[in-house]
C-alpha cells in the first residue's frame, strides 16, 4: 500500500497530482489532498461514521463523485471526513461502484476552514494505470 499527493501551481484554483498502488489508494490520496486543501492538521479524533455507496459510469467519474460527496458532507451537513475505512472499488466496463465507511466529526467553531471548494472538477482527470501504479491530476474549483 502506498499513496501520495503533490500540489502543483495553478493560477486560479487548486491542482493536485495523486497516485496510489491501487484504486483504493488513489481515491484515498485524493481524499487526503482534498482534506489538506481545506483544513490544517486535524488534532481531533473522529467520533462518528457514515457509510456511503456510490456508482458512476467510469472510474474517473467515480473519483470526482466520491470527492464531491466529501465536499457535500462538509459544506452542507457540516460533517468533516477524517479517515476512510473499508474502502472497496469495483471497476467494471459499464459501471464502477464504491463503498466505504467514513470516520469523521461534526464541524463546530473549533475547526477553521481554510477555503471553500466549490466543486471537484472533471478537468483533465484521467486515471493512468502504469503497471499497478494509478495516477491522475485533479483540480478543485475554489
Amino acid at each position, binding site marked *: 500500500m502506498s499513496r501520495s499527493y503533490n500540489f502543483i501551481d495553478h493560477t486560479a484554483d487548486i491542482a493536485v497530482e495523486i497516485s496510489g498502488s491501487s484504486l483504493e489508494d488513489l481515491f484515498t490520496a485524493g481524499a487526503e489532498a482534498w482534506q489538506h486543501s481545506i483544513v490544517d492538521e486535524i488534532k481531533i479524533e473522529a467520533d462518528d461514521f457514515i457509510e456511503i455507496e456510490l456508482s458512476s459510469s467510469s472510474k474517473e467519474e467515480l473519483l470526482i463523485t466520491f470527492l464531491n460527496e466529501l465536499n457535500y458532507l462538509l*459544506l*452542507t451537513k457540516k460533517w468533516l471526513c477524517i479517515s476512510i475505512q473499508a474502502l472497496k472499488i469495483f471497476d467494471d466496463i459499464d459501471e464502477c461502484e464504491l463503498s466505504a465507511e467514513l470516520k469523521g466529526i461534526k464541524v463546530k467553531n473549533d475547526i477553521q476552514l481554510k477555503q471553500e471548494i466549490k466543486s471537484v472538477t472533471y478537468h483533465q482527470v484521467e486515471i493512468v494505470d502504469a503497471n499497478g501504479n494509478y495516477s491522475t491530476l485533479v483540480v478543485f474549483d475554489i
Partner: protein
Amino acid sequence: MNVGGIELIKVRENLWEIPATGQMRVPGRIYISQDMIEKGMKDNEALKQVVNVAHLPGIEKYSLAMPDIHWGYGFPIGGVAATNLDEGVISPGGVGYDINCGVRLATTNLEYERVKNRIDDLVAKLFRAVPTGVGASGAIKKLSTNDLKKVLTKGSVWALENDLGTSSDIDFTEESGTLKNADTEVVSQRALERGADQVGTLGSGNHFLEIDVVEEIYDVKVAEVFGLFQGQIVIQIHTGSRGLGYQVCDDYLKVLLKASSKYGFKLPDKQLACAPIKSQEGQDYLAAMQAAANFAWNNRQVIMHLAKKVFKETFAMTETELGFKLLYDVCHNIAKIEKHKIGKEEKEVCVHRKGATRAFPPGSKMIPAKYQGVGQPVLIPGDMGRYSYVLVGTDKAMEETFGSSCHGAGRNLSRTKALKYAKGRDIVKELKQKGIVIQAKGYKTIAEEMSDAYKDVSDVVDVMHKEGITRKVAKIKPVGVIKG
C-alpha cells in the same frame, strides 16, 4: 502570431482570429492587444479552449473570447458562444460553477469628502451585517424548502415581496431579476440544502462588498443618465448563487456527460459536457440553471438591502436623503435565450457568457427605459487595491459579440504565489496608506486577493473601448472593502 502552436491572425489592432481547421465548425475570435498576448499568454491552454468551443454542435459565427480570457473549465473564462436552437447544444461548461455570478452597483447622494472619517465604522458594520467566508450563512433566517423554491422561481421579486427591496431595484436588474422558465422540480434536494441558509451571504474567494468613490468620469452625458458624479460614494457587490449554483452545475455535469455519450458527441474535454438544447436533458439543465440564476439575483438584492440598512443607520438618514439607488445588476456567468442577427436574419440563440457581461446597446428593449437612450450599464470589477469601471453597451457589441463584453481583471498570480509575495508585508496597512479600509474573515484571504495577484483591469476595458464594444463611462476606486 503563433502561441504554442496556435496560429493567431490579426484582424484589427485588438482582434485576432483562429481560422477554422479540422472539425472546428466556426473560427475563433479573441479581443486582446498584442502586448497582452505577449505578456499574459505564456501557454496556449485558454486558446485551446477557444478552439474546443468552436467544435460545439450548432455554434454560430465565432467562438469568442474577451480580453480577460484565461483558462477555465470547458470554456475559457471570458468565453462567449451562441448556439442555435435547432441543432445547437447547451453546456454547463459555458456557464461555470457559480451560476449568475455577477455585479451590482448602487449610487448614493453621499460625497466622499463628507464621509471619509466614517469609513472604518461603515466597514465594521457592513462586515457584521453581511455574512462572509467559507460556507457563510444566516444573513436572514434559514428558509423553508417552500420559501427557497419561491426564491428560485421569483428571483429578486421574492426580496421585494419580503420587504428586502423596492420595485425600482427590480427595474434596474438584468432580466428584472427573474428568469421566467426556472423550474424547481429539476433542482436536486442537495442543491436546495446547500442554498437554504445562504441567502444574503457573500461567500469566499474573489467575492466582495465595496464602498467605492467615483474617481473619474469619461462620458459626462452617460454618467449623468446613470446618476454618477465625481467624488460620489457608490456600493459595489460581487457574488453569485453560492453553494446552490455549484451543486446545480455539478449535478448537471453528470447528467450531460451521459447525454453527450447518448447523442454521440466526441468531447475534447469532459467539462464541455453538453446536450441538444431541445432535448429533455438540455431543457432540464436550462430550467435548473435559471433557478440558480434567480437565487443569485435575490442573493445580491438581499445583500444590498442589508448594506442600505447599515448606511441609513450609520448616517441617520432617510432613504430619500441617502439617495441609495441601484444603478444596475449584471450577471457574467449565464446562458440565455436571446434574439441576435445571424447573417441577414434575426433568430433566437442560446448565448453562453462565461466570465463575460451582457452589453446591450441604446434602443434595446431588454434594458430599463431610463437607459434606452444611452445603452446598458456594464460593470467591470477590478481588484481591491486599484479600481473598477462602469462602461456602456454599444451597437457594435450586438454586431460582433452577441451583445457581450469583458467581466473583470483575472488573476495574475496563483494563491500560493500571492501568499509568498505577501510574506513579510502588512497588506492591511499598505491598503490603509492608500486610503482603503479592509475587513475579511482571515488575513490569508486578504493576502491571496491583494492587487499584485491581479492583472490591471484598465488594460482589459481599454481593449473593449478601443474596439468600440463597450465605452468607458466612469472609473471608481475602493475606500472600504469586505472580503470573504
